Each structure stands twice: as C-alpha cells, then as structure tokens.
C-alpha cells in the first residue's frame, strides 16, 4: 500500500513537472515535435482489459503490435477479454477497489465515471494529436475532462445504413435519398414492394441506441443543454418522435423486440432490405457462399441528414485509459504510445477491416477505406460522431440515461402506440431528470 502510494505520488509529481515544463519552458512546436519518452519501470508487466473483438484480424493485429512492444521493451502485456457489455462493470469495480487490470479499453463515457482513478494522459494525448493530424472532436470529447485527457480515444465502431441495391431500385429509387424526408419515402416504397426496412426499437445496446440518437439529433433535439439541464421536451424532439412513428409503420413487424443481433440476422435472412449496422453484416454475408447474392447486392451509406442539416450519429466509441492503481504507469504510457505509432495504428485499423474507425485524422488515409466501396460509409464514423448525452457534460448521468434506455424507450413507447408522442417525451424527461438532477 505504501509502495503504491509512493509510486503514485512520484508519478503525479513527474506529471506536474512535465506540465510545468511544457507551459513555461518549451515552445509548442518543440513540444509537438518531441515525442515524450516514457521509460518502463524495472521488471514492469501490464494487464489490459479489453472487449472481445468483433473481427479476428483486429485482435491479431493488436496482439502483433503488443508483441512488438514486448520485444522492444521487455514489458510483458497480458490481455484479458470480456464481452463488450461486461467491460463497464468490470472496469468500474477495478477502479473502485484499486486493483485488477492496469489499463482498460472501455466504452462511451466510462472514463468519466471515475476520472479521479485514472492517470492523466494530457501530455501523451496532446503529443499524439499534434503528430497525427489531430483528434476527431467527438472522440476527443469522450477522452477529455476539464481540458485534460483522462483517456486516449481509440476508435469509433461505425454504424451505417446497409441496404439491398436491387430492392431499392425495384422500389423506384435510383439513388439513396440524402435527407430524412426522402428516406421515409424510400421506406414506404420498400414496404409496398414487400421488402421492408427494420430498425431495432428493443433493448439493443448498440443498434437501438444508434437509431434512437440519430432520430433525436437529426431533428435537432437533445437530451440536455450545455449545463446538464434536461431539454428533451422540445418541439424538435416531438418532430423526431412523429417522424419515428411514420417510419415505424413501414418496418417489418416485431422490431420492438429486436436486440443487437436481430437486425443483421433479419437482413441476412432476406427478411429486411434496409437496416443499420456495423460492417460485420457484410463480412458475414461474404463468408457464406449461400449469401453471395446478398453480399454482391449490398450497399452501405450514412444515415440521412435531418432538419438539423448535418450528419450526426452516436456510433460506438471506445477509449483506452490507465488506472492510477497501476504499479507501472510509465510502462503503460509507453505501451499506449507504441500502439498509436503510425505503423502500429495503421496495421490495427487495417486488421479491423473497416470495423474500427481511426481516432486521429492522419489515419483517414488508411488504404482500408478505399479497398472496398462498402467501407466508405464507415470511414466517416469518427467525423460524424457526437458524444452521448449531447450537449451536456459526460459522466454518471449521461451513462445512466443510456444504460436505462431512456431514449430507446421513448421512441418505442410512442411508435408502438402505448403512449402518445407527448406522453412518451414527458416520461423520458422525467426519467432523465432522475439522473441529471442529483
């Protein structure tokens, strides 16, 4: 315990000194150019808790990078995997009790739930941003708190519309509509042709939240304002709910029970011709000879732009943080620095085959985005990403509102007719206030 504390004090003293140097001694250009040098502690070894990979090649690339790091520094890195919904409680408990993994690859606002338990990564974050064309703003929002990096943005798991081109053409559309009004027309036409669309209104952690947040944000609604005051009860939200009700009428029946896997399953089984998903659906179709016609006919595009006039989506965002309880903070920083080197990061993004979208703008040039037309829509994920709980501060309230499915439930109650649009919004407002008014 004493050793831990001494280490910790030493580490934070070092950081303070480094920050001081940066502020007074070094010119920004110099600070940008000079990579911070982290010297791993004697005999250091690390443990990283990460989510179970969606794409095997992504994990292979991450492990290969890790192996190179171990060869270069002698620091062993053990990687533990947990299913993506279990990372949050595991990481929170590790932060709470002060033992367990040294680093965590977590989701959304997780770092903001225990910011004081995380090592300050401002120096590394600013260096990486400067060296690689800057962080994407949305992802940076997840990693920064009060102007300091408490995590490093890792990637956005892109969400995009996938559809059957032949079915769209059969429905009388030569190209995919760009705006929400045209999109509704397309869905109506698809339904008339017996090849309907479908988006999850059930408790789908990823896809359900993606869809609900797009509905809200594309119409200009927001859960809270900048100060964290709940502003969901607005004319914009009402417009979005009304729009969702219209859209829902064109869906295949049963979407209110859909969980995360249902939409791709229905798409690949030819039950729906349009939904939104990660790129994984395409690869499933590609690998199965029986679905070759689906893979050939499949196209991807971004969700249409609503009255708000710009493309905004939630996506899934992941960050990397270092716990303060680690005995080897320098080794952990060296590891992160290594993983964000151009070579490592490019190899990793390529391995993820369009599943993980780059956190730094420089890596948008990665060849993976050009390698297949279906990837193009996913390349913009980091750019269109807007943090959860927009426009308010991130933290336990924003995380709690999402985990409690407040927004997903709001749309689901309204579209299924259990409540009127106004009642559903009022209930969502009440529920959100429980989290924001502590």
């Amino acid at each position: 315990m004493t050793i831990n504390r001494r280490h910790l004090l030493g580490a934070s003293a070092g950081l303070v000194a480094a920050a001081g140097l940066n502020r007074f001694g070094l010119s920004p250009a110099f600070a940008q150019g000079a990579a911070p040098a982290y010297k791993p502690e004697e005999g250091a070894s690390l443990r990283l808790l990460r989510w179970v990979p969606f794409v095997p090649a992504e994990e292979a690339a991450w492990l290969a990078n890790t192996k190179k790091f171990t060869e270069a520094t002698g620091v062993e890195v053990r990687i533990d995997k947990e299913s993506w919904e279990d990372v949050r409680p595991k990481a929170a408990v590790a932060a709470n009790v002060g033992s367990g993994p040294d680093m965590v690859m977590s989701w959304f606002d997780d770092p903001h739930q225990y910011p004081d338990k995380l090592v300050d990564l401002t120096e590394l974050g600013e260096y990486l941003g400067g060296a690689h064309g800057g962080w994407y703003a949305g992802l940076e929002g997840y990693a920064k708190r009060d102007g300091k990096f408490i995590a490093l943005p890792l990637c956005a798991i892109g969400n995009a519309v996938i559809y059957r081109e032949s079915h769209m053409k059969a429905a009388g559309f030569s190209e995919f509509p760009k705006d929400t009004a045209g999109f509704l027309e397309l869905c109506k036409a698809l339904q008339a042709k017996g090849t309907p669309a479908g988006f999850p209104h059930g408790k789908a952690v990823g896809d359900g939240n993606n869809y609900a947040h797009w509905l809200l944000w594309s119409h200009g609604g927001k859960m809270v304002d900048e100060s964290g005051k709940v502003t969901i009860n607005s004319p914009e939200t009402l417009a979005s709910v009304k729009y969702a009700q219209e859209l829902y009428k064109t869906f295949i029946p049963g979407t209110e029970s859909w969980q995360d896997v249902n939409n791709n399953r229905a798409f690949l089984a030819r039950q729906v011709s349009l939904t939104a998903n990660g790129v994984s659906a395409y690869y499933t179709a590609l690998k199965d000879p029986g679905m070759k016609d689906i893979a050939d006919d499949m196209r991807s595009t971004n969700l249409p732009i609503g009255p708000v006039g710009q493309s905004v989506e939630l996506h899934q965002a992941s960050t990397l943080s270092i716990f303060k309880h680690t005995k080897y903070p320098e080794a952990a920083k060296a590891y992160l620095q290594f993983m964000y080197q151009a070579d490592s990061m490019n190899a990793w993004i390529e391995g993820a085959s369009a599943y993980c979208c780059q956190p730094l703008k420089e890596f948008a040039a990665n060849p993976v985005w050009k390698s297949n037309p279906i990837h193009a829509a996913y390349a913009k994920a980091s750019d269109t990403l807007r943090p959860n709980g927009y426009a308010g501060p991130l933290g336990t309230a924003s995380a709690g509102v999402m985990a409690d499915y407040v927004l997903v439930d709001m749309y689901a109650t309204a579209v299924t007719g259990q409540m009127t649009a106004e009642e559903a919004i009022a209930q969502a407002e009440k529920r959100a206030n429980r989290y924001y008014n502590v």
Partner: protein
Amino acid sequence: MSAVSSNSFARSNTAVGLFFMLPAAAFLLCFLTYPLGLGVWLGFTDAKIGRDGIFIGIENYQALARDSVFWMAVYNTVLYTFIASVLKFGFGLWLALILNEHLPFKSFFRAIILLPWVVPTVLSALAFWWIYDAQFSILSWSLMQIGWIDGPINFLGDPNNARASVIAANVWRGIPFVAISLLAGLQTIPQSLHEAASLDGATGWQRFRFITLPMLTPIIAVVMTFSVLFTFTDFQLIYVLTKGGPVNATHLMATLSFQRGIPGGQLGEGAAIAVAMIPFLLASILFSFFGLQRRKWQQGGQD
C-alpha cells in the same frame, strides 16, 4: 457446593458449544449478514460504481415510488411469480402423480423429466429466444405452414405476448423441480393408507383429496416456497429473452435492479430496488410457514 461444580461444567459445555459454532457463525456473518447489510445500507446512499455514496435517507425509495418503470417492474414481478408458480404447481403435481403410477420405463421418464432443470438457464433461454424470434420463430413458421396464421406471431414485441412468452419459458424450466420434489413426497405416503381407503370404497378423487393432498402439504409448502423464491428473483431468462423489453413490459425487479445498478452505475438505486424485493420474499415465506405448515393435522389434531 456441588451445584457450583455442575453449573460450571454446564457452563464450560456451553462454552465449548459456542466455540464449535464460531466457524459457522463467522461464515454466516461474512457471507450472508454482511452482503445483505451492505445491500440495505447501499439502498440508503447515492453510491455509484467507482464512487462511495453518502447517506441520503429514503431518497432512493421516494424516487422509486414516483417511478412508473419501477411500478411496472413490481407489477410484472408479482404477475410473473403468481402465474408461473401456479402453473408450475399444477403441471408439476400432475406430472408427479403420473410418474408415481406404474408406467413402463418409469426410471427413464423420471430421468428425462429433469432435463429442463439440468440445462443451464442461459442455454435454455437462448433456445427460447430463437423459438420466440420475431422473424424465425419455429412456432410461427409451423403455424404458417399449417395455414392457421398469415404472419409471424409477435412473441416478444407485444407487451402481453412477451409476458406470456417469458412465463411459458419459466414454467417449462421450473416444472421438473416441482415434479421431482413432489414425486419424492408422494413416495413417502404409506401404500397401506390407500389400500385401507380402497377397501372402504373411496374413489380415486377421494383418495387424492383426503390422503394424498394432506400428506403432501408439508412438501408442497417447502417446494412452493422455493419455487416462488426462484421465480421472484429470476434474472437470466428475462435478460436473454428481452432485457426487460418491449418498453419495460417484462422488466422484473431483479433485471431492473441490475440495469440501473451495474450497467447504469447507480449502485444505490439498484440496491434500493433489490431491497424492495425483500418484503415480498418475506411475505411469501411467512405465508408458507403460517398458511401451509400450521395445519391442525400437522400438530396431531383433526383437520
């Protein structure tokens, strides 16, 4: 005085007894009293994951009292427990009575009856998930092939369908426990009673009503207490099938407690929901003790 020595002997005997009880007491204290106490305490705080809470009195409970989702979960839990327990009892007793008769391959049937209970809940829940799938349900498919329905049944999408579906899955899974336990009870009933009743000209129904049922009541009380407790605290089935959806129509108190406490990070509120289950559980235990096990015949009197 001799009384003193015998007294001190008795006292030292008590001391030894207490000494031997220590490990058990420590075990109970560590693994039962402490977690329960901690849970109750957390319910009175605003603890979040990663942050210790401060005492806020009954604020969590006040908030829950105004929370329509919580009341929906309470309603669902009571409905779920009541219907599922009644069905499990009915089918379980029926099955036990059949298995108690002289059937061919009796041991084989008794063994396979246990299967639903043996399969891990999560696996059977996943199987039910496919059975109830909105697009690929085997039930919908079969009925459509027969031509009874035009489109798939919306098993988990419609609130009442979803409730019925999860209850059916729970009943399927819970019957073996009830059936096998009651079967064990049935086999303790002396055959001579039935023979005597037959000689007196009792019908099958009369023998069931006046011999089997009264003799079985103590077992029924215990089995149903457990069954109600298991059902009331069910989690896995709901979590896999619906996660509480559609729109919280199948949220039980246990699943809501988890959703708010762990993924939502609101430990205090999650604990408060869990603590709110205790009165219901206590009531069902007390009902079983005083309602079912205090029959006069059990105390040597006439019923």
